[in-house]
């Protein structure tokens, strides 16, 4: 157990946390403003990854792939908002769960229809492949480091959008009183479509960025969706700041737990049993974290309402 390993795993946790933030931010924004629980958010993550893989394979450019991911996921998001989601805002959560569950089935099976069951591959761009030496002599993959920085940049951009721009004022006002801002002349339908497309684009971006280090396949979105749910339950639903803190906590707990828990158990158990127990416990670590937060604060770390 060296410092290098610990630091490397810390960076890995940071990287997965920051990607989780991109997913969770959209979910929490959509819930905060429109009061909608969207199970199909994972499908938008998948759509982004498939758009990126297809565009990158056709043009050979990773950057164009990212543009395609953003555009494709935003378009898919706007489309389902206009056709389906719009009808769900006044419904109870049960209807929202069912309708968006139906959307998952349609998206997953539709993607399987078009692309088949085999995973697509999205390569890390040439310029970003290979390791980089960090201060302290640690070798770390440049691409993963780029993901951390890109994710942080998006997070800063998002906070700026919500805190400093006109549209951000409308979003925050929409969270508090939708009738009032409609009465003040804001086109609420357009605002909702915009927010949904924004959340979708963030999910699509995360899908494309992560797709380059994992495989791009049908069903890739749902495990991330559930992690994003855990994240916003921990952070407090509706809070972007909570989503960021929650995502980092979940990313770090998950990554560090799977590496260090088996090591920890080896201190007082036989190696085989320790690996087994550690693996079982680390697969449950984030849910235990969630349970602890819930006991302590039922509405999450930054949540205001139940």
């Amino acid at each position: 157990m060296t410092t290098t390993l610990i630091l490397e795993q810390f960076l890995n946790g940071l990287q997965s946390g920051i990607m989780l933030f991109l997913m969770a931010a959209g979910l929490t924004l959509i819930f905060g403003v429109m009061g909608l629980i969207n199970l199909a958010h994972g499908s938008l993550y998948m759509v982004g990854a498939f758009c990126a893989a297809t565009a990158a394979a056709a043009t050979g450019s990773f950057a164009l792939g990212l543009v395609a991911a953003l555009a494709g996921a935003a378009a898919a998001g706007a489309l389902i908002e206009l056709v389906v989601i719009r009808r769900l805002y006044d419904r109870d959560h049960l209807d929202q769960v069912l309708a968006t569950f139906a959307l998952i089935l349609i998206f997953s099976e539709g993607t399987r229809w078009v692309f088949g069951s085999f995973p697509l591959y999205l390569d890390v761009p040439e310029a970003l492949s290979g390791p980089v030496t960090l201060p302290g002599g640690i070798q770390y993959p440049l691409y993963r480091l780029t993901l951390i920085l890109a994710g942080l940049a998006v997070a800063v951009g998002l906070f700026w959008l919500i805190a400093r721009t006109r549209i951000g004022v409308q979003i925050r006002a929409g969270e508090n009183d939708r009738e009032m801002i409609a009465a003040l002349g804001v086109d609420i339908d357009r605002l909702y479509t915009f927010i949904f497309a924004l959340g979708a684009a963030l999910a699509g971006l995360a899908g494309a960025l992560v797709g380059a280090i994992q495989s791009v396949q049908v069903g890739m979105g749902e495990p991330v969706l559930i992690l994003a749910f855990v994240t916003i339950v921990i952070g407090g639903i509706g809070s972007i700041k909570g989503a960021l803190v929650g995502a980092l906590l979940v990313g770090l707990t998950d990554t560090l737990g799977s590496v260090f828990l088996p090591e920890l158990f080896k201190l007082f158990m036989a190696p085989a049993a320790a690996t087994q127990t550690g693996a079982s416990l680390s697969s449950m670590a984030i849910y235990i974290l969630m349970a602890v937060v819930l006991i302590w604060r039922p509405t999450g770390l930054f949540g205001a309402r139940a």
Partner: protein
Amino acid sequence: MTRETLFNLAVLAGLVALPLYAHLADEPFTITLATRAVILSLAAVGLNMALGIGGLVSLGHAVFFGIGGYAMGILAFHAQNYMPLMETPFLIEGTKSMPLIWLAAVVASALAALVIGLLSLRTSGVYFIMITLAFGQMFYYFAISWSAYGGEDGMSIYVRNGFPGLNTLVPIQFYGLCLAALVLALGFNGALARSRFGLALNAARQVPERVRAVGLDPFRLRLVAFTISGAITGLAGALFADLNRFVSPTMFSWQLSGEFIVFIIIGGTARLFGPVVGACLFVVLEHYIGGWSDYWHIWFGLLLLGIVLFGRGGVIGLIAGKARAHG
């Protein structure tokens, strides 16, 4: 007798007559299909006690289904390998006897429901949905990492477990057992809905403040309902494992939890037979559309979307008219 009661009796008659006919016509596959439908119905009836009366949208009920399945799997696995389950502090042997397995499944899943309920019922609404979903995923990953019992591959049980006085290897006899369990659960559900407990639970869904004002605790009402609900779904899990003679982590999958809710809604929310109609329709559609197109989930998704957006009240609502003011 209302139209709904007539319709329910017709469904029940169909569940008795169709497999009997299949038995006489020597079509064991149809009986297996019907058994699957009846077991999934039972699982959804369990969920309906929490969701239909108590309004608890649990997106993690596959946890209890999976625990029931693993209770069967673990007990039968030890019995078929002549390996005791536990030696210290006292000896526990595996078993191939269904009544014992069911007891273990019901107790284990009720305990899990109690613990999950204690944690998740502190919240409500969308938090509750997400938290039950997350606990479902936790059990799923735990089952995958639990290599002593097959891990990701699951485990096979070579011979179906026995029931005193019956030969469970004969499809129609096993079907009879499952149908009896379903009918008992439905009777229990009906009685529960009319009982003082059921009325209080229903009131706690509609106006929790008033329930609190008359001195009842909504949290405890919901916790009891959630525990009973988990126990019944757990029993269904044990039967399902016995039907397939196989358990695997997919019994914990969140898609299955989603499907349980779907059964209830397709059939009709807050209807006693809603989950039964929904589950049977699902199994029939899965079999026929699945045989016709590889991508049957698309059609199923579109159908579900149509029902949620336009056809409120589900199949029973369509046939039997509007629900009574309080269901």
